[in-house]
């Protein structure tokens, strides 16, 4: 299946029902107990002098 076909079908399938978590869902920061895993640093250098 091509990527486009997959995406189209997947979107249809994933949106048949109302999602368990709506697009406005935010767990309150007072309830956040873990931060997941630290992402690896980017392989592009950050220039602190940029404005």
């Amino acid at each position, binding site marked *: 299946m091509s*990527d486009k076909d997959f995406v189209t079908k997947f979107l249809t399938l994933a949106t048949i029902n109302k999602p368990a978590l709506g697009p406005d869902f935010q767990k309150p*920061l007072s309830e*956040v107990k873990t931060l997941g895993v630290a992402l690896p640093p980017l392989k592009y250098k950050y220039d602190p002098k940029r404005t």
Partner: protein
Amino acid sequence: MSSVQSSSGGPCTPQGKRSLERFSQRVSKGEFYEAHQALRAVINRYVNRAEYAEAVELAAGGAELLLKAGQGGSGADLVFYLLEVYDVAGVAVDDASVARLVQLLVLLDATDPTLKDVATGMNNWSVKHGECPFGDPRLHNAVAAKLLEAGLVYESERYMLLGTEESLEKYVDLLYGWFEDAGSDALAGDFVSRLVFNYLFIGNVKFALRSSQQFLTRYVDSGAAGTVDTITKDIGGDSGESTFTMLYFADHMELNFLQLVLLTCMTKNRDLFATLKQQYADCAKEYSTQLQVLGQEYFGITAPKQANFLQDMMSGFLGG
């Protein structure tokens, strides 16, 4: 319990006001050391008498004057003293107590060697005396800006993530600017994935959606993204936002994958999650650690235990 009243207009008593005036005069004459020591002694007396509101105002006012005079070392010392008083007095995290710290943080020079310690000290207080296990979001927003100014980009990112809506805007700006600077070899997915995963890790669907869409829209508008189709799906929300918009990139599979990861987490549907990983095997491999975390958070998939040969053997012997 906090006995410190929030006040906006300097020390509460005429006595305190006089102390600060004397201090200010000495600072303006360049007698920094003497002024600093004298004020510390005065604050100390207030602390010993448990007159914390006064001590807070003097420490904050003194630190402000020293920082404005370019005296980072003694200014930071008074900031630490202020935090000590906050702690002893049990000052709770609220608008006034946070604003006082934010104001001082803004005045601190980004090159000050104590910057990270000041930031950590402030955040530790907000962890201990506030509701958020990682500290206060308003404080994080200010800390993130200052750390970024100092070039401490990954430390800054961490605070942005746990910040306010304003921090989200800064986070997108940071990553998009970085992406542009990195030039034509840079992959948008490397940057967008940080927004998607970091916000999903802390259960913030709203910010994951908003930040990734802002980033991708800017990418599309730049004209460098190639062919893009916009696909909108109704997701039947009761009020507010009730559609899911996907930007389909003909030339960037990874960007499609990342947007679908986000949607799939919203559904909490384990089968969809499996299908998605299967279809995008390369991406799933690249982001396997991140997907494992999401698997636990959103789909209740427990991570496979590390193989422990000895333990397996023992439990085998014991019939467990």
